[in-house]
């Protein structure tokens, strides 16, 4: 008997965006029931390739084979009919609608919402993915939203499930849940194509991997036989060094002081800040750990000045009360800010990079003279950021949305660091960034602090905080723990705090 042909195969697929070769004669094959990883640096062409497999982009050249027979996809609906499901990193859900209504809209049938709701409950029970069909989407966490997308795919009994960076938005517990689901899905006879920058989890769940570099396949391997370091090396083509971190010898004066900051969240489903207090000194990296949704967004908004505090004295920069000052006044005092959400918050998707440089730098970078924009200056600035942070972009001044996720992240971090701020507040600095670039960004944060700036990093990634922070605190239900020295700190201690142990009893009560 002949060996069974692979479930899906891409042969010499080429995809061009203008002059840019995003996929350069790529071969990929995924066997039945296989969990296959697609690895590569930011901008290597991973998302482009899976969008082709899902019918969202048309290949410039090349063929696709399904169980050995050539086929083509004109749109995602055709892909779904064949049994290909895809979960995107950024979901397309309507907040005001219920879970069942969202799923009914996305299915290619005209089933009644009631019927969809029944089937949805059935599937979510069968796979151990708890979801209430009648709940509105805005009430749900990111993990639950992703569950909707997964269940929607599973309801169409897929043969191949594609996941593009599914875990970069999940908490560790939610990740465990996802892995358990993938086990089930595989047992049901479905193959999985999995994109992730987290190499440890790839080693854990994937049986084979295809590695892309600059749009070309540079290797195939069994990740279980490799180490995270050797995988990273294959992706980058050279060794990836962890961030170099000297012991902090002398912390300087207090640069950012927050005392008794309480702030009700404007969003009815947000977390209010309660009596937050912390100090960040010149020369140090201070980490805020915590499970997503514990007030990180509100803390960032309050510190950046996007949301004003009730009393000016609750936030001080260099001793000056800034609680009632807007974000540009704080920038003029030496502050710089990097929000968590790249597209839509840190950058306007349809605006060019030079315009996005103008957006955060118009008050401080001399881009504006007497109300008139100096376009040449913004373009020069973009080139400087691109060079210093190795941002790979196609054309000279592309729109932000044309950059791959990780390259845009390098741009928005680099845009702030290159200004040499005295105080940098950054949320999730290496979200969806490949190993090499993550190390570059972390090193830049450490170097900035050592040159005398105060750096506050809000991150859900404990490994990251242990790598770069000198001190850290935990945020839980809008409260912040007392600071802990990273040196000699046990991860379990931080884990307990993240679960709420050690916080005042009333804070834990509210959790219940």
């Amino acid at each position, binding site marked *: 008997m002949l060996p069974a042909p692979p479930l899906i195969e891409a042969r010499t697929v080429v995809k061009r965006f203008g002059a840019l070769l995003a996929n350069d004669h790529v071969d990929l094959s995924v066997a039945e029931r296989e969990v296959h990883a697609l690895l590569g640096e930011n901008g290597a062409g991973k998302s482009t390739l899976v969008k082709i497999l899902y019918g969202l982009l048309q290949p410039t050249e090349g063929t696709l084979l399904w169980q050995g027979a050539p086929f083509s996809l004109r*749109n995602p609906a055709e892909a779904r009919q064949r049994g290909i499901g895809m979960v995107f990193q950024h979901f397309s859900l309507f907040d005001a609608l219920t879970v069942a209504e969202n799923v009914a809209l996305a299915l290619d049938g005209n089933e009644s919402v009631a019927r969809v709701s029944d089937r949805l409950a059935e599937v979510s029970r069968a796979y151990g993915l708890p979801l209430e069909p009648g709940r509105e989407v805005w009430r749900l966490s990111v993990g639950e939203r992703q569950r909707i997308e997964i269940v929607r795919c599973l309801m169409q009994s897929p043969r191949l499930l594609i996941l593009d960076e599914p875990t970069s938005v999940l908490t560790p517990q939610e990740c465990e849940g996802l892995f358990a689901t993938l086990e089930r899905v595989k047992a049901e006879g479905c193959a999985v194509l999995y994109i992730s920058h987290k190499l440890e989890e790839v080693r854990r769940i994937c049986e084979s991997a295809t590695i892309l570099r600059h749009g070309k396949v540079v290797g195939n391997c069994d990740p279980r036989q490799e180490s995270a370091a050797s995988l990273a090396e294959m992706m980058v083509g050279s060794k990836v060094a962890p961030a170099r971190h000297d012991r902090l010898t002398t912390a300087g004066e207090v640069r950012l002081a927050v005392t008794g900051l309480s702030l009700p969240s404007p969003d009815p489903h947000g977390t209010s800040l309660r009596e937050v207090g912390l100090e960040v000194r010149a020369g140090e990296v201070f980490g805020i750990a915590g499970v997503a949704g514990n007030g990180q967004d509100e803390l960032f908004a309050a510190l950046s000045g996007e949301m004003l505090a009730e009393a000016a004295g609750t936030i001080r920069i260099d001793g000056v009360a800034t609680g009632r000052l807007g974000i540009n006044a704080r920038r003029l005092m030496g502050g710089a800010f990097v929000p968590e959400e790249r597209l839509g918050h840190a950058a306007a998707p349809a*605006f060019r990079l030079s315009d996005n440089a103008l957006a955060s730098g118009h008050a401080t970078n001399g881009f504006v003279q007497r109300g008139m924009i100096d376009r040449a200056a913004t373009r020069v600035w973009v080139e400087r950021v691109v060079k210093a942070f190795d941002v790979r972009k196609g054309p000279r001044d592309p729109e932000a949305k044309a950059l791959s996720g990780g390259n845009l992240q390098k741009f928005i971090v680099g845009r702030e660091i290159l200004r040499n701020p005295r105080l940098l507040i950054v949320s999730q600095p290496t979200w969806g960034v490949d190993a090499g670039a993550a190390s570059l960004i972390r090193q830049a944060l450490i170097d900035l602090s050592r040159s005398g700036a105060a750096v506050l990093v809000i991150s859900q990634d404990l490994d990251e905080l242990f790598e770069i922070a000198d001190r850290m605190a935990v945020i839980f239900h809008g409260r912040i723990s007392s600071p802990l020295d990273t040196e000699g700190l046990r991860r379990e201690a931080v884990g307990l705090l993240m679960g709420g142990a050690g916080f005042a009893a009333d804070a834990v009560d509210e959790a219940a």
Partner: protein
Amino acid sequence: MRIVLTRRDDAPAWMALVSPLIAVALTLLSGAVMFALLGLDPLKALGVYFISPISDGWALQELAVKATPLILISVGLSLCYLSNNWNIGAEGQFVMGAIFGGWVAIATHGAANGPWVFPAMMLAGMLGGAALAMIPAILKTRLSVNEILTSLMLVYVAELLLDWLVRGPWRDPKGFNFPQSVMFDKEAQVMRLMADGRINLGTPIAIIVVVIAAIMMARTLKGFEIRLVGAAPRAARFAGFDEKRLTWTVFAISGALAGLAGIIEVSGTMGQLQPSVSPGYGFTAIIVAFLGRLNPIGCLIAGVVLAITFIGGENAQISLRLPLDVTRVFQGMLLFYVLACDAVLNYRIALVRTGGAAA
């Protein structure tokens, strides 16, 4: 079967410019079909509509007079629409400008007045338009009231106020009981530019406004702010721009420009206040703004195109005995095709068979 629209990421930039041209072509084509169905020679009828308004010097002057208010208003509306502020009450702001500016003319009527009267009227007109536009802006920012409804409803308030004024307190005592105000003094009328024809100072003013707005949108931080607030409000907040204050600013500017158009129209072409002072310039300017891609220069071109339909309509009424409503049909078709072309060019349209697929 159902229709699915998916956004094209690869729509080239030149499409934004070609799409209005296609829309104009389709409008002409549909117009030809419509005339044929009405039993008219399509070529001759289209000639009356679209060629006669640009056929001689006098007609061109008329064209400028009609295009001027459309351009002034649509430039202001573009600023609103770009920043996600849906002011559709420019018609009312136009009328309010006419009332405020007209008040200056009526109050100084017959008195020995100097060259300051006309600038004062323009200022008052801008103030009137801006004041009316601020109502929806304040309601929106303070109470989150939808500005589409409030700005539209205020149109009727302004129109009824004018109607009452010219029938009541401001009626010309020597006007044989006609509902109209006194004729404005010579100092209170917009300066005519030519001896034979009605082109007046309003047209150069509109062109200056277009130039200023074009520079503002392309080169200044304010223009950048307007675009950013409309395209990505959260990113605009991160940039430190105040969305609410901007709402006030763009409503004030667009109201002032509509009010300016109103007083120019009244003092330039009518010379007095009448119960109705606009053939719908404030609404037609919405079409102009979109046809002009919310771009000041685009509004200048689109304003001329729409002015042609106004004059063509009047000519057709006389020489083809067609009702004036045909003008509205043309304007409606144009807006329809502009929006449709945008949809077709920016979205991939697919028919999806339903049923059975979700097994």
